[in-house]
């Protein structure tokens, strides 16, 4: 059938997938529209309740890009520190990596191929 990608273990039909997506979206939207329309924009409801503390400016609250995954990188410090140190940016190291991999590949291929 047009638009169906066969791999030997399964099939992927993007059009059918989209159709199902649209149907579920329609159902969800219908359920949402049945709810009570008590939410009004830019009114008292929108402001966060901070127990009386002054609200800091939105720009200051925005999580900047580099501390987005702060926890992830803090947890994997043992893995990240050597990895970042490994990327030295020094051209000599790039070529050292090349010769090491060349040696390993030659040993592997010769030991099996002969």
């Amino acid at each position, binding site marked *: 059938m047009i638009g169906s*990608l066969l*791999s030997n*273990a399964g099939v992927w039909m993007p*059009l059918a997938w989209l159709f199902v997506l649209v149907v579920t979206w329609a159902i969800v939207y219908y359920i949402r529209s049945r709810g009570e329309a008590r939410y009004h924009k830019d009114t008292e409801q929108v402001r966060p309740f901070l127990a009386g503390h002054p609200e800091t400016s939105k720009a200051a609250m925005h999580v900047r890009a*580099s501390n987005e995954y702060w926890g992830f990188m803090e947890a994997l410090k043992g893995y990240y520190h050597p*990895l970042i140190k490994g990327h030295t940016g020094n051209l000599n190291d790039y070529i050292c*990596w090349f010769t090491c991999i*060349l040696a390993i590949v030659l040993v592997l291929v010769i030991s099996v191929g002969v």
Partner: protein
Amino acid sequence: MSAIESLRLHSPALIIAIPLLTAFIIPLLSKIIGPKARNGFVVAVLTGVLALVLLLAHDVITGGTRTYVLGGSTPLLTLPSGYQVPVRIMFVIDAMGVFMGIMCGVIALVAAIYSCMETYEGLYKFYTLLLLVTTGIFGLVFTGDLFNLFVFFEILSIASCGLVAFKIDSPMSMEGGFKYMVISDIGGLSLLVMIGLLYGQYDALNIGMLANRMDYGMIDIIALGLIVTALLMKSGSVPMHMWTPDAYGETPSSVTIMIVGASLSSLYALFRICFTLYGGFIGINVAGWIIVILALISILVGVTMAIPQTDFKRLIGYAAVAEIGFILLGLGAGLASLSGNSVDAYGIKAMEGSIFHIFNDALDIGLLFFVAAVVSYATGQRNLNNLCGLGRKMKYTTFLFIIGLAAVAGLPPMNGFASKFLIYESVFHLNPILAIIGILGSIMMLAIFVKAFSGAFLGPPVPELETYKKVPRSMLFAMSIVVAIIVFFGLFPDLIVDNLAHPAAQALVNHSEYISHAIRIGGV
């Protein structure tokens, strides 16, 4: 013979000669006609070349492998009377070569349209380099001669190093260009030593003739190890990948997609040499497993290294390394299950997935680099920490970034998912761990671009980013072409896989058919 007929007959040579000719007409022309007319001329030439490539693709798909002998009395005269060895330089174009040709035609056209708004001085040299990279990729993917492969590989490297180091004012692009060129030079020289090794033994440079005469002695094994390492370095698999973010991050915004295309065409060279030259070699499964292991490491390292990045383009550079890992995964799986002239059902599907992924990867990573370039063009900022709340003002760019993000991370409706789906399903049968790490890599890829998306586009409008330059329409037009192709391939992947990727995988696996075309006695 009608014009169309002669075009169809000579199309392989024209596809390479026309960009080369325009590459050197432009310096002369730009003295006469204005910049607008020159941009239009380049775009017109590249659309013509893309049309020629599609014409050639139609011929190759219906008519089987095409050979074109440069300089022979008829295009098919591979062995003139009285010769046992094909002497002239030949183009042997099978489904795989033409698939890569379509990729190169599309990305060259998109890069040319995108760069209509470039504001560097000495811009005509920019187009000369762009067209030289296009000629290099076309030559690399069409040629049937090993030394010709080396020459086009070097044309590609020198021209794309010229593009990487084009902004002579910024010290970073100088450093990136220098590293790129030394790495490509060492890769090219090991390719030359490999050619020496094979030529010394079999006294033939034609890939078909060599594959026919190979008997896989000790020297051929050394040559295989040398060339696999050199091409893995040039395409950026892990331990030798560190030049990739340096070079991709510093290229002028419109041609990063061409440098990505250049490293993908060195992946094509890896496909060609491993399958066609060393197809019958028993030890090729070992090389397949080496490539699979390096692919896994490059998926993991590429993805994890992208998370701590703050520079937008460097982050996408590391994502490109992970994408190369996915393609190598499919390639390695295909190689590992290759036996003589046939591959089991899962191997073919893995190769189809990775060939299709080459095309998708070029488009997705190219689109993301275009979005990064538009963001740095509009706000002048490259560091993600200073960007905030661009989504409000640059709505269309945000929409494009979401599509690019979904495509690279392999979310269902996009083309990334179609090719990764093929790779995971078939690689799972080789060894379940491969598919698990692949899916983990895709999820982490999504995490990276969620970080880039929320960092740059979400959040409140920040006062210092208020004034930003309006994004020119030629950039948006180029990006919408790429998005249209991505969505089309996402919704109808079987059109591409059945018509192009499957014959390409088939053409690679049974290399004897390739050999018969290359050394057809007497020519028809």
